[in-house]
């Protein structure tokens, strides 16, 4: 459904991307990994039209996104980035903000249909019980779930997430990613997410795109990308790659300087 062709884009000096080519199929979960400053977020921003490509194009269902109205794009693509504080807004009102792209030009009140979708999204993500709480009162794990519910209210076909598990403990990391996996299965939602944690990326993504210095280094299943040679080259860190005994997915273990000296 999404095709990135020869994409070159970026800001003036840093985080430039060049010659990016990849496809994402409907219903896939694709993870974008790479060191800090490699251009992962820039790639997400290009897909959401925040920055314009200098060369190449991005096609959504074979249509160049530059030719799609941003309002129409918002009905197909939802983005979850970091939450920033808003005062005095309840969870329900917050989720309702996701309906904005669907309002008609001079529509003033949300319709029954809008409220049903909001309710459905809150039930699906299991936050219906929080609906009258303020965003400031709930925990950061709950807040992340609310962000997902808001994105779902857009009724997207493609969901983009920028580091959805940062600052969360493992309970919430797993809860969020399990939820995303479930939504992917139940709604046939295509997901592209930027992840820092290689092991979470390995467990949850069907394919990984490893970006290094603005270029795609490798692309493929977790088994193909998460090899110790590749990781050591890109991250410049000594690692050991094992297999998770339950899921049989690759598992990256770090080696500290002290341990390295000892083993030598």
């Amino acid at each position, binding site marked *: 459904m999404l095709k990135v062709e020869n994409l070159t884009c970026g800001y003036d000096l840093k985080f430039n991307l060049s010659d990016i080519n990849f496809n994402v199929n409907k219903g896939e979960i694709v993870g974008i990994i790479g060191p800090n400053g490699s251009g992962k977020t820039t790639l997400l921003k290009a897909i959401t039209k925040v920055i314009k490509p200098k060369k190449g194009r991005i096609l959504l269902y074979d249509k160049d996104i530059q030719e799609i109205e*941003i309002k129409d794009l918002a009905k197909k693509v939802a983005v979850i*980035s970091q939450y920033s504080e808003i*005062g005095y807004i309840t969870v329900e009102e917050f989720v309702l903000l*996701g309906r*904005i792209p669907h309002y008609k030009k001079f529509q003033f009140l949300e319709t029954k249909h809008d409220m049903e979708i909001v309710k459905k999204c809150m039930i699906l993500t299991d936050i219906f019980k929080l609906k009258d709480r303020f965003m400031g009162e709930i925990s950061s794990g709950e807040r992340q779930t609310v962000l997902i519910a808001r994105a779902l209210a857009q009724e997207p076909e493609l969901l983009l997430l920028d580091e959805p598990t940062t600052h969360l403990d493992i309970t919430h990391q797993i809860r969020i990613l399990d939820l995303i996996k479930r939504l992917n299965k139940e709604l046939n939602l295509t997901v592209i997410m930027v992840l820092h944690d290689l092991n979470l990326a390995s467990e949850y993504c069907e394919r990984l795109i490893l970006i290094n210095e603005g270029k795609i280094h490798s692309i493929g299943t977790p088994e193909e990308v998460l090899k110790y040679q590749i990781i050591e080259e890109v991250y410049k860190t000594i690692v050991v790659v094992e297999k998770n005994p339950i899921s049989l997915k690759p598992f990256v273990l770090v080696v500290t300087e002290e341990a390295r000296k000892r083993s030598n």
Partner: protein
Amino acid sequence: MKRKSIYWIYWILALCGLLLATSLFSLCTGSVGIPLKKILEVIFTGKGTTEYSIIFNVRLPRIILGFAIGGALALSGVILQGMFRNPLVEPYTLGISGGAALGVCLNIIFRLYQTFTVSTLPLFGFLGALLVILLVYFLSIKKGILKITELLLTGVMISFISSSLIMLIMAVSRAEDLHGIIFWIMGSLEEPNLILIKLALLISTIGLIISYLFWKDLNAFLLGEEEALHLGINTERTKRLLFILSSFLTGCSVSVAGIIGFVGLVVPHFIRMFVGTDHRILLISAFLSGASFLIFCDTLARIIISPLELPVGVVTGILGGSIFIYVLSKKQIILGGK
């Protein structure tokens, strides 16, 4: 859903009631007290009496101007705070008042109001404001993108520059001019020109209507500029139009009534605590309460040291600030975070 709209309607009715009450209070009180019971009688049958002339020539114009200016400033505050996602931004932060004050100062020291007429004072104020708006606007556009942080910084800097220039002018000006400048800067709803009052009323009402075309955009901006784009909002167009709308409202208010601080800062804040962040209710509520607040403060300014008058900016500052601190300490506020 229905519940929310009904709640909104009640809320708007309550604010209209408050506005009516403050206006009546303002009509009754002053150096000549007119009892509430007598008001209707005077309005309908008292033509020719002193009371009639006090009500229609003195108090009513002030109330109408207070409504227009208070509403416009509060509305402009809501829009700017929403757009910048910064609760400390107010209409004067962007240097618009400084520009207007500078325009008026120049007019006064060069005695242009004597050569032409007194009505050139608001005109110069407006020109000053317009100049600053354009300056801030074009300095903040980088590569076709209006940068919100630069808008704020440029505005604050221009505000400093113009207030320093005003001090410079004051330092070298003659004593009689000095009085005029200070009087103007402190702000007043005393406006002999009826046409200006009507114009202010028209502009602020139209401003309110236009702001409603942007409720979706403002709500989306709650999430941040980039997120608003993700929700299908043309953020570049929205930022520009909202900046122009709010600064135009501020410029008009400042040039008619001088610098009346605090309304644009406190009222939006205050109202947000009660109605939440949805701009559909926030815009109208802020407008109505800003209007009531300014009319009330102006009445106090007239009566506290009657027959002399306090500058209304002093009253809005002291009253607004104290009420705000009181409410802030009483109400459990959820501003997000832990």
